[in-house]
């Protein structure tokens, strides 16, 4: 069951989406090497505004690295790209203003409460904190707003990270294995966030190897060995 729709009036206004007429993501021959180990190899990847794209692939396929390059957490070793119309290297701030990366690590402060973590995120993104109580209620954490994250389970932490993403309502939502360690209800909350973003016309890129969670995607790409390759499921291979 999806959570109820958030009342948009109490949440901060969304940042303007991609520059008109440009893809949400346009990567050209992007390569990322760690030491001598290539994690992403000559990837061409384009996502149009409003698309919900699923990136599938085994562990170590390069999905996380690709999403972190798109989010500007990593720079490409070679290649170039634009996200929301901004250059990957020269337009980092524009990309960061319009992108939220929800990754393996929740990026929360353990000695802050749930509410304080969200309020700090609001301060860092220069947005109003008025929507914090509602965002917490939205992900089922209304009863623990004043409790420190240190006592939270992995599922609760992930819910809080989703609440942080909901607060910002970014035009581009990047989700890296968002279902890892979550129970069924928490997975539904993540799906609810994806559905809400999709309904609002925002772009979502979701990387997962959980085959049961691809139903919300409008398109699927498959990665293996750092490259985008033909999907083995479509080709009749396991």
């Amino acid at each position: 069951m999806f959570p109820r729709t958030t009342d948009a009036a109490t949440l901060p206004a969304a940042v303007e989406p991609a520059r008109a007429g440009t893809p949400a993501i346009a990567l050209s021959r992007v390569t990322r090497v760690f030491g001598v180990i290539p994690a992403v190899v000559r990837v061409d990847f384009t996502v149009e505004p409003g698309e919900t794209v699923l990136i599938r692939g085994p562990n170590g396929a390069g999905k996380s690295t690709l999403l972190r390059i798109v989010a500007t957490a990593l720079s490409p070793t070679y290649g170039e790209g634009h996200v929301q119309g901004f250059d990957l290297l020269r337009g980092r701030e524009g990309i960061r203003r319009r992108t939220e990366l929800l990754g393996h690590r929740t990026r929360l402060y353990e000695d802050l409460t749930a509410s304080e973590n969200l309020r700090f995120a609001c301060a860092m993104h220069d947005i109003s904190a008025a929507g914090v109580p509602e965002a917490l209620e939205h992900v089922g954490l209304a009863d623990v707003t004043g409790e420190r994250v240190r006592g939270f389970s992995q599922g609760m932490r992930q819910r809080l990270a989703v609440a942080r993403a909901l607060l910002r309502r970014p035009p581009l939502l990047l989700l890296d294995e968002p279902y890892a360690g979550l129970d069924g209800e928490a997975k539904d909350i993540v799906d609810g966030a994806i559905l809400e973003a999709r309904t609002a016309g925002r772009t979502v890129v979701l990387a997962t190897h959980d085959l049961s969670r691809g139903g919300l995607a409008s398109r699927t790409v498959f990665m293996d060995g750092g490259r985008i390759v033909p999907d083995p499921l479509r080709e009749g291979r396991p």
Partner: protein
Amino acid sequence: MILLRQAAAVAGKDLRVEVRGRYALGAVLPFAATLLVVFGLSLGPGRTLLRQTAPGLLWLAVLFAGVLASRRAYETEAEDGAMEGLLLAPVDKAAVFLGKAAGVAVQLVVLEAVVVAMVSALFDLPVTGSVGTLAGAFLLGTVGLAAVGALFGALDVSARAREAVFPLLVLPLATPVLVAGVKATALAIDGRGASSWLGLLVAFDLVVLAAGTLVYEHLLED
């Protein structure tokens, strides 16, 4: 204005984490106290020698405490990938640097008050000479130490590298603060002014704060 507001948010967050974690109280303060007692015992009971060496011991304790406090300020960022959150926030990274430095500086000021009281009691050191000069030396020295710690703490938040590299970078660079702080403190205890040493501390603070504001973003980026 946004920069100062965001710097205040970073400092407030760090101080809140610190108060709840009680790291300064539980680790840094006992370390500084132990350092002073051990040095005091090694120097023997001679009152004159203790009083002559007290300013140096006091600043050594502050310096090592500053290293520990700065390192701690970045350990909390490494726990659950929070540093990446700061990196990906569309915030002027100078705000993060200034906020980190301010958070460490507030901790150090509290710590210095305790350390000065301990030195005064243990080494029979009068701190009633030139109180203004003494306060100025500690205030300016604190800003310099906190800024150096905040700047180099960002170099690498991976635990292993931080343990080894951080003191090696910070301690040599903090030498001007140590020298000027010791000299100004000694002069202040004698009731004399120390404008030249305080001027050196001001210059050091301005250089490190300006450098940090300019280069911090480049230290954080991949």
